[in-house]
């Protein structure tokens, strides 16, 4: 059939719709996207150079023998083998960090919560107390560690003087293998409760007074109100502090570095009595920046990273069961 198509649609409309699709709406979209990317461009560079590349490189380095001065030499899983089976210090450092985290995380949480509860009162001058409780966390860890090394001096430090005054025995603190990690934990609780306390305080202030009043009308006493109103509504803050606390505690470095330093300036000797202060990060630092065994250090970093990711994922999964979000939603 010979059919010529009569273009009934006016040419102007066609031209206009063509223009719109090339230069109009879609052109604006492209410009919009470009502008957006222009603004965030530095961050994309940073993510690639300082996050993505290091993560991938970490895998690579952990399977090499790399001393910086010579190019990396592929050794496969050798570093991991040495780390897990032949290096006596590795498991010691794992034990030290786990012990430290096991004490520090719950204690910091409890103290921060207690302080936040104390501060959650509408009394005159509460701001002064809030500042007072927050002040220790402003100190650099190095300075705080030096201060506590002094306070915990076994012979004549203030803490032991206080213990004696209470009729308790003196403790060896940083000079004793048994009490050196608790000494670190004590430092951590003193200087680490600050920002955790603020997070709890903010969460406490979000709890509607109406809920407490309703509970009181139902006859609940203060403890019951705490258990059944306050705590459930605090679970998101508890969850956040718990996860960040674990991530931070396993990476503790400065306090151990400074405390161990007294006995050992070259970084080679025992970290604390019987290596009781040899936390994971300290051993990693030595491998990487004292012995320049970058491969070994990378293997350690990777192992810890995997453990932390697994722990975080497990916690997030479990949070569905015990974290209560206002508005009925379940966490993740």
């Amino acid at each position, binding site marked *: 059939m010979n059919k010529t198509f009569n273009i009934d649609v006016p040419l102007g409309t066609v031209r206009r719709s063509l223009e719109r699709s090339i230069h109009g709406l879609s052109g604006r979209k492209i410009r*919009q996207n470009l502008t957006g990317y222009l603004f965030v461009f530095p961050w994309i560079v940073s993510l690639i150079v300082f996050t993505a590349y290091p993560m991938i*490189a970490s895998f690579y380095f952990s399977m090499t023998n790399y001393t910086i001065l010579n190019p990396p030499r592929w050794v496969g899983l050798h570093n991991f083998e040495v780390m897990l089976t032949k290096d006596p210090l590795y498991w010691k450092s794992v034990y030290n960090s786990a012990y430290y985290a096991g004490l520090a995380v719950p204690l910091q949480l409890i103290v921060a919560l207690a302080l936040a509860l104390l501060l959650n009162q509408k*009394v005159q001058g509460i701001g002064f107390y809030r500042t007072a409780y927050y002040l220790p966390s402003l100190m650099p860890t190095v*300075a705080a560690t030096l201060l506590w090394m002094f306070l915990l001096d076994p012979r004549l430090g203030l803490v032991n003087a206080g213990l004696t005054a209470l009729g308790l025995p003196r403790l060896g603190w940083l000079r004793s293998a048994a009490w050196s990690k608790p000494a670190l934990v004590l430092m951590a609780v003193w200087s680490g409760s600050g920002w955790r306390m603020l997070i709890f305080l903010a969460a406490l202030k979000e709890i509607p007074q109406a809920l407490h009043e309703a509970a009181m009308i139902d006859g609940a006493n203060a403890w019951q109100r705490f258990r059944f109103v306050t705590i459930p509504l605090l679970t998101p803050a508890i969850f956040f502090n718990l996860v960040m606390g674990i991530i931070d505690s396993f990476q503790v470095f400065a306090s151990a570095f400074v405390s161990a330093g007294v006995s050992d300036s070259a970084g080679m000797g025992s970290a604390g009595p019987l290596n009781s202060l040899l936390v994971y990060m300290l051993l990693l630092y030595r491998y990487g920046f004292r012995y320049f065994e970058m491969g070994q250090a990378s293997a350690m970093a990777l192992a810890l990273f995997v453990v932390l990711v697994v722990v975080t994922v497990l916690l997030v999964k479990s949070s569905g069961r015990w974290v209560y979000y206002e508005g009925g939603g379940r966490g993740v």
Partner: protein
Amino acid sequence: MALSNVRRERNPLLRVRGLRKKLSLGWTYLILSAVAVIFLIPFYWLVITSLKPMDQVFTDPPTWVPDPILWSNYVDALTSPAFPFFRLLKNTLFYTVLSTTGVVVSCTFIAYGFARLDFWGKDFLFGVTLSTMMLPSIVTLIPTYVLFRWFGWTGSYAPLIVPYFFGSAFNIFLLRQFFITLPWELTDAARVDGASEFYIFSRIMLPLVKPAILVVAVFHFMWTWNDLMGPLIYLEDSTQYPLILGLSAFQTRFGVEWNLMMAASMSVVFPLLVLFFLAQRYFIEGVVLTGLKGV
């Protein structure tokens, strides 16, 4: 006349309740103060030890007030060759100020992009940003060091400064939250009037985010001042040391002169306290000005 009648009719029990309220208030202050004392004793000990003569540092029973008060300890500590305070301070200020500038400049741009602009993949990218906040820094430490080694930047301040000109997850997050709260009518009107995005950003939005910028600057400044790992691995020459490294080296060089060591520690801590107390007012003012909660 009617008023005094009302007063006489007031429930006598109320007077007891008023008393009970006063007692519980008393208890509250007592506990608050006791805890404050426990928390602040180490600070107090830090300050007075820095002012004690050496023979009063370790006494039994402890000396609670130094006599005489040795301000000269500060002179001795800060001029001692083991703790060259002014050089340490100069070094610290150098990279801390530059790093903070970098963070402020880069993160305002980036956060503006996330908050006020739309582009393909924005949400995904922001999600990635949030996850890097939780990333344990341990996994990037060694490769980043190797990278800087390859650049030839180890032994200089560059690794402590340059990365911050490309953004920092936490600060991007903070500023983005703040940008989002600013009124959209302002930018919409400006766009309709044909203003370029950059003009909108620099002339309209930036002046409004000053409080958040201040918060970011103060937090980053304090964090950098306190950071040990960065200077420890990247600075090799002791003449480049910042205060934090000088302090940690002090203990191995000065042995057991605790009073001087406490004076040195105070010199590192004191500027932070001053900054905190000054900035506190800005935090409050800033929050009040913008009516923003949660920053």
